[in-house]
């Protein structure tokens, strides 16, 4: 009896492993193929049947990709966009989230409903007027334009408000009685208690800013002011048949985030899981 139970459990474990191994191959293979193709010559990439490993590992595709896209500028723009968006989202959302959760003031409900309205509307509904504002001010093709829609984060405000609501009022009251001003209470006592939530919001903001395609395509049409995502989209038109160069370009575009992910894998996944559902 016991041994048959044991046997069925072992069979199930084997099944689970088989599932995961096949699944992992499906998930990883495209990246491996991208990597291998990026080192092949165009002629080799068109061989039938295809070679698995490059006959001769060559870096020429990377030179070509870097010659047709200003990768340094793209990295710089993308990094600046991410940093500014993360800083703005975390700082402004912390302040507003704290005020909405812990302070009493008139009109709080009405103001908070603005946050909820923004969260319910898809971002595309704001895009055309946002673009027109920037165009009118002559601010297209700037880093500011890339950051613009992310200067405030309704979702971040909502998310950090939740975090502050989870902290007992007594902590703030004690700090206040000890002579902290409202600002000090927030900045020195309360904000540090939401570190995990702030980190989650930062990860979430960074991942989505990095992947965003429509906004950077619209607002920054000058190649030097593009992000990695929108830059790749132009590469697509230029090298429509030269796949090794496109693979090299894609790899260059994804490497920084993937490296960060390898180091902070747990924070990434937990950050996204915490902010989940948005």
């Amino acid at each position: 009896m016991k041994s048959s139970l044991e046997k069925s459990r072992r069979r199930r474990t084997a099944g689970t492993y088989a599932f995961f191994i096949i699944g992992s191959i499906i998930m990883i293979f495209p990246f491996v193929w991208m990597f291998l193709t990026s080192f092949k010559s165009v002629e080799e990439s068109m061989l039938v049947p295809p070679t698995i490993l490059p006959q001769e590992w060559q870096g020429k595709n990377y030179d070509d990709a870097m010659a047709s896209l200003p990768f340094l500028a793209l990295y710089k723009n993308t990094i600046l966009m991410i940093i500014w968006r993360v800083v703005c989202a975390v700082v402004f959302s912390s302040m507003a989230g704290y005020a909405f959760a812990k302070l009493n003031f008139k009109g709080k409900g009405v103001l908070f409903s603005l946050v909820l309205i923004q969260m319910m509307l898809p971002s595309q509904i704001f895009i055309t007027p946002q673009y027109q504002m920037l165009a009118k001010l002559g601010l297209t093709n700037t880093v500011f334009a890339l950051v613009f829609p992310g200067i405030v984060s309704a979702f971040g405000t909502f998310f950090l408000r939740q975090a502050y609501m989870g902290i007992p009022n007594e902590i703030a009251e004690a700090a206040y009685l000890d002579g902290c001003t409202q600002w000090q209470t927030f900045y020195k006592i309360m904000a540090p208690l939401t570190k995990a939530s702030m980190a989650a919001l930062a990860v979430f903001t960074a991942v989505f800013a990095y992947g965003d395609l429509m906004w950077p395509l619209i607002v920054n049409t000058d190649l030097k002011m593009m992000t990695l995502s929108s830059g790749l989209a132009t590469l697509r038109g230029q090298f429509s048949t030269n796949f090794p160069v496109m693979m090299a370009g894609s790899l260059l575009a994804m490497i920084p985030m993937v490296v960060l992910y390898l180091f902070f894998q747990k924070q990434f996944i937990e950050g996204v899981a915490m902010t989940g559902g948005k």
Partner: protein
Amino acid sequence: MGKSLKKSRHGRSEAKWGYIMVAPTIIGLLVLNIYPFIDTIKLSFSKTRPFGLYEMRGLENYLQMFTSGEFWRANLNTLYFCLLTVPLGIFLALLVAVMLNTKIKGRTAFRAIFFLPMVVAPAAVAMVWKWMFNTEYGIINTMLSSKINWITNPNVIMITCAIVAIWSAIGYDAVLLLSGLQNISKSYYEAASLDGATKMQQFFHITLPMVSPTLFVVLIMRLMSSIKVYDLIYMLVEESNPALTKAQSLMYLFYRESFVSGNRGLGSSVVIWTVALIGVVTAVQFWGQKKWVNYEV
């Protein structure tokens, strides 16, 4: 007396700080979201004129939109995309989540692998899939020893997009579902196994009802983002691709109308329509959830 004075001063400084601290967010929301929202509605009733001017034209854009075959085609394409990706995608994500919830070695590594596409820009993801789906030299046709025009055949293109979309989202959805699964108390399963319930029975009578609130959130989110699909299709299907008519989603149409053809009035009508569509679909979901989502315990 002294206490109440102190309290009222406290109250006043509290209110003052309240306004100061919400100010950046509220001003930002007004400028970046509330004003644009109203402006988009206005735009949808106007025609673009040179030099950034507008002319109110009543329902003209909407009439043009509702009588345009391309618009209805885009609706069908979007619907088809949702049907292809949402049920299968969520089913697979749940399967992965359930598997990740077992005690096996290496589960953190597997979780990280499934989640990987999330941290890669959709633009890069689309590039490699486009290469793998290439008709002559793509590895997928080679492995299947087929000659399918994955990217250029109008009848196949949505399936191609759906495969890439599911592959991209599965890890994200699985991570959300996994956190729902981990909240289920072990004692239910222990009691059930003592009563002789099989694993299958446990899944349908414990796991599924208990995870249904999370499943509902994932479903709502996935449906919304599928209705809004744009980047993946944009990267896979160029404007010169003959399959575009059968692949163009509502947001792709919006992008082309507003920013390629410069017809922002019509583009805005398309957005308003899409937002209304999302609203209706979400409302139906919330109404339908009573039948299957279990909020007890």
